[in-house]
């Protein structure tokens, strides 16, 4: 479980997050939704210790970010940023192998190599493994970084808008893989999703964020309703039934 306790964050004089308190349950997919600029990335980056936490406390399975060293945290939590722009020319297989760093510190044993291979197969990167990072499309690059995070073998995976650059096929395939990871490997996945329908269809738990404050949090089928989405995004929404879960029509 990730416990977020009274976390606030300012940039300059602006309040980006205000007194955020929430619990994210383990084993499953948690979606963070909210309008642009709500503070979703900020919250995810604080949990992933990308941004220094000054005000409040966050605990990952009982380990406080304030008192746990960064290399220990690298064994618990992995984050894939919203935009993985990369200037560096390294090969995909090398990138994914670096995901093993927290375990192997650069000396890969046979087990590490197996994990790297498995990551490439799982995220459909085998054909691309000898390409350089700057020879991939945005979506392929994002998948490569997700595979790297997978190779890191942490219990928690934090993904910031991973569907952004993906076509329909790969978006679905990725959600499928993530669901499998959650169900079969007991992984816990926290992701920022801007399409509420993806959140409705795939997440187990959902947090709604607006102006740096939590608007709702709970099991997705309970909290992600036409009414809550209308309030969160200020749009008109109607619910269309579907055998796979609700579809929120806001078009």
């Amino acid at each position, binding site marked *: 479980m990730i416990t977020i306790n009274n976390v606030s964050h300012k940039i300059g004089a602006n309040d980006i997050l205000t007194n955020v308190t929430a619990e994210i349950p383990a084993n499953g997919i948690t979606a963070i939704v909210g309008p642009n600029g709500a503070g979703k990335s900020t919250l995810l980056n604080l949990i992933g210790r990308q941004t220094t936490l000054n005000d409040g406390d966050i605990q990952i399975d009982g380990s406080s970010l304030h008192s746990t060293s960064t290399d220990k945290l690298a064994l618990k939590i992995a984050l894939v940023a919203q935009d993985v722009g*990369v200037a560096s020319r390294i090969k995909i297989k090398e990138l994914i192998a*670096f995901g093993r760093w927290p375990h192997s510190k650069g000396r890969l044993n046979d087990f590490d190599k197996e994990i790297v291979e498995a990551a490439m197969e799982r995220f459909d990167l085998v054909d691309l493994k000898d390409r350089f990072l700057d*020879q991939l499309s945005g979506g392929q690059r994002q998948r490569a970084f997700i595979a790297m995070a997978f190779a890191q073998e942490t219990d928690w995976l934090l993904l910031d808008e991973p569907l952004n650059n993906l076509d329909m096929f790969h978006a679905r395939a990725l959600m499928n893989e993530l669901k499998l990871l959650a169900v079969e490997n007991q992984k816990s996945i926290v992701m920022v999703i801007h399409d509420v329908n993806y959140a409705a269809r795939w997440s187990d738990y959902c947090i709604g964020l607006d102006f740096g404050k939590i608007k709702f949090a709970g099991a997705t089928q309970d909290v992600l309703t036409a009414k809550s989405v209308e309030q969160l995004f200020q749009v008109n929404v109607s619910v269309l039934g579907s055998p796979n879960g609700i579809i929120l029509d806001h078009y």
Partner: protein
Amino acid sequence: MKLHHEKIAATLILAGLILLSIVIGVADINTETIVLSRIPRTMAAVLAGASLAIAGLIIQILVRNKFVEPGTTGSTEAAMLGVLCVTIFAPGLSIILKMLCAVFSSLVGTIGFLSLAKNLPNDQPLLIPLVGLIYAGVIGAGVTFLAYQGDLLQYLGVWMSGEFSGILSGRYEILWLAGIAAIVAYLSADQLTVVGLGEAATINLGLNYSQVMMVGVATVAMVTGIVVVTIGILPFIGLVVPNVVSRLMGDNLKQALPRVAFLGGILVLSSDIIGRIIRFPYEIPAGTIFGVIGAAVFLYLLLKRPSNG
């Protein structure tokens, strides 16, 4: 197998050039010329070329921009400022202390540039080298002004055209320290590669970003300071060599660093040899020769599409 051949080829080329460099020259070949002048000159060219190329690669990683080198990040100019201050205010200092001053002021200059570059938007890759040119230009103007005040402009002129004809034993040996600094950087090759992936990836993998950055900055300052004190300015090497290697085989430093070192050593030594042959018995500075070769290679690379690995 291929890798093995490449190693042997590079070693043979370098060994051949070293031999050539030792036998070519105006003076008669005897043990004294060889030990006191030819070997120092040859090793100085190899060490300076290899370590400057590595310094260039590392500063490119730290700034995350392929169009910079120590001469466009203020590292070289700051080192010169350090040496000049020593020359004016404490002329009696030993070469080691002089070197330390150069390294220290290069360190300050490099850190200054990094904190400047951090605030620049990274979606405009040409902005960083432009700001770097201005930053280096400002420090360079300070150097010129100080040299003018101290009546040292001539001294500055000699310096600006990095060349090896004045290298003698007893003076070049500290260049080995630059070589050692490069080896220390190699020990952190993986960490530096991760830093090249960006701060987010570095933190994510549990590495201490600023600590790795400091290792990199220290290497750059060490190499730049030492080369400036012993040889002067050799522009372009830190820019061209890492770009060639990056195009051919990417930025994984475990593999790139040794190649960058070899290529840097080979190119600078070749430039020095060519400079000695072309107008025999006169000499053209290696820095000038390399400027011509380097510019041509760099333009070619810029215009050519990247390879598919």
